[in-house]
C-alpha cells in the first residue's frame, strides 16, 4: 500500500493545533519563575502549592465539585426516568416532550442564565447553591436523555416482560431486567452531566454573587492578570477531566457495542 505522506502530515498538523494550548500550559505550570515566560527559566511546584494553599481557590473548587456532583445526580436520575417515560408516550406527544428536554442544549447558556437570574431575583433565590444546582441539572439533562436514550433503544424489551411473566412487580422487573444493561450508559451520562456543570461559567457568574465557583474564580482572575496559578489548576483539571471523560467514553462505546452485537 502506498503511504500517503502528505495527508498524514496535514492530519498530524491538525491534531497538533488541537493539542497546542495544553502542550504549552502543562509545562508552564511547572515553572518556578515569578512571571509567565516560555520556556520557564526554572522548574518547581510553586504554582501547585499556591493553588492548594489558597483558601479562596479551594473554596471555589469545593463549591464547584459539590454543585456538579448534585447537578449531575439530579440530571442523571430524572433524565433516565424520563427516557423510560418517553418511550411509553403516545407518538404525537413524544416529539414535543423530547424537544423540551433536549432544547437546553441548543439555546445558548447566556439566555438560560439571564432567565434563571431574573426569575431568581423575583424569588430572592440568588446566591444559592440550590438554584445553581437545579439550573445546571436542566442544562445537563439533554446529554443524559441523548446518551441513556440511545442505549435504552437498544435494550431488549422482552427481558422486562419476561421478568413480569415470572412474577416480578413492575418496579422490580424494571430494576432487575432493564437497568443493569443500561448501567454503563447511565454512568457515562452522569460524568457528562457532571462536567457540563463543572465547566459552566455564565449561569454561575450571574447567579452567585460573592460565592464563586471555580470557573467564575478563573474568569474573574483572568480579566485582570494572567496568573500562572491558573496554569497549574488547568493542568490538574485537564488530567482529571481526561481520565474521567476517557472512562465515560469507553463505557458509552462498550455499552452500545455490546448491545449492538446481541
Amino acid at each position: 500500500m502506498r503511504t500517503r505522506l502528505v495527508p498524514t502530515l496535514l492530519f498530524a498538523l491538525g491534531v497538533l493545533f488541537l493539542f497546542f494550548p495544553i502542550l504549552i500550559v502543562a509545562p508552564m505550570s511547572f515553572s518556578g519563575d515569578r512571571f509567565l515566560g516560555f520556556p520557564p527559566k526554572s522548574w518547581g511546584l510553586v504554582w501547585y502549592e499556591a493553588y492548594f494553599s489558597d483558601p479562596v481557590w479551594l473554596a471555589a473548587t469545593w463549591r464547584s465539585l459539590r454543585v456538579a456532583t448534585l447537578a449531575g445526580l439530579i440530571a442523571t436520575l430524572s433524565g433516565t426516568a424520563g427516557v423510560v417515560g418517553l418511550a411509553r408516550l403516545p407518538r404525537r406527544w413524544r416529539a414535543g416532550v423530547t424537544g423540551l428536554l433536549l432544547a437546553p442544549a441548543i439555546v445558548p447558556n447566556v439566555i438560560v442564565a439571564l432567565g434563571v437570574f431574573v426569575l431568581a431575583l423575583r424569588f430572592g433565590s440568588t446566591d444559592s447553591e440550590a438554584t445553581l444546582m437545579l439550573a445546571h441539572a436542566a442544562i445537563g439533562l439533554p446529554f443524559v436523555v441523548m446518551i441513556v436514550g440511545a442505549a435504552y433503544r437498544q435494550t431488549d424489551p422482552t427481558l422486562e416482560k419476561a421478568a413480569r411473566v415470572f412474577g416480578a412487580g413492575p418496579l422490580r422487573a424494571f430494576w432487575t431486567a432493564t437497568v443493569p444493561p443500561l448501567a454503563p450508559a447511565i454512568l457515562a451520562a452522569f460524568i457528562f452531566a457532571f462536567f457540563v456543570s463543572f465547566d459552566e461559567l455564565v449561569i454561575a457568574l450571574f447567579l452567585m454573587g460573592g460565592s464563586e465557583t471555580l470557573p467564575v474564580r478563573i474568569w474573574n482572575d483572568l480579566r485582570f492578570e494572567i496568573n500562572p496559578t491558573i496554569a497549574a489548576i488547568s493542568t490538574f483539571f485537564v488530567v482529571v477531566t481526561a481520565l474521567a471523560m476517557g472512562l465515560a467514553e469507553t463505557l458509552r462505546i462498550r455499552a452500545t457495542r455490546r448491545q449492538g452485537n446481541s
Partner: protein
Amino acid sequence: MRFAHRLTLVPAVLLALAMFAVPVAFVFSEAVFTPEFSLAHFERFFSRAAYLSVYRNTLVVSAAVASICLAVGYPMALFIVGQPAGRRPLLLFLVLVPLWMSILVRTYAWMVVLGREGIVNGALQWLGLTDEPLTLMFTTGAVYVAMVQILLPIMVVTCYSAMTEIDPGLVRAARVCGASPFAAFRKVFLPLSLEGAVTGWSVIFILSMGFFIVPALVGGRRDVLLGNMIVNQVGQANWGFAGALAIVLLVSTIVLLGLVRLVAGRFLYSPREA
C-alpha cells in the same frame, strides 16, 4: 400500569420547565414588558449603528468559524475514515481529547501563547523574523484561532459519524463502473456525506452565536459579540434590553438555521427517506 410508566417523566419535565422553559419565556416577557409593554428595546437595538455592527459581527464570526471548521474538519474526518478500522478509534480519540478541556482553560492557553511575551512572539524573535513583538492578542485573528481550536473537534466527529454510515460498497460500485477515484468521491461519497457536513456547520454556528468567553478574553474592542453585550447589560442591571438582545440572538439563530436547512435540502440526498 402504562400511566405509572408515564409518571416517570414528571421530574425531568418539571426540571426542564422550571429551570429552562419558564426562565426563557420570562426573558421574552421581560424584553417587551420592562418597564411597560413596548418594543422600545428592539427599536433601540436596531436603530444604533454600534449595536448593529455587533449584530453583524456575531453573524459574520459565527458563519466564518463554522466554515473554517468545515474546511479543516471535513478532510480530517475523511482521513480517519480512510484508515484501517483498527486504527480509527485511536485517531478519533486524539481529536476528541481537547474537547474535554474547559473552554476557559483553552482560552487561557491562547492568552499565554499569543501574548506579547508569549511563545509565538518568542519564536518569531528567536528566528529573527521580527525585532518587535507583534500584537497578536486582542485581535480578531486571535478570536478566530481560539474559537476554531475550541469547536473543531465537534466538526470532525459530526462529519466522521456521517461518513461511517456510508456504504463503502457504493463507492466501490462507482469505481467498478469506471469512475475515477475523484469522480467516485465527488459523485457518490461527497453528496452522501454532505448531510453530516451541514449538521456540523449548523451545530458550530449555533454554539458560536452564544460565545462570549473567547471574544472577551482574547478579542479587541471591536470583537464584541452579542453574548458579550448580554453579559455587559446584565452587569448594568438592564434586564429589558438584555432580554431583547437574547431574543434577537435566539431568533436569528433559528431563522438562519432554517434557511440553511432549506437551501441544503435542495442539494442533499436523504438516505433515510429514499
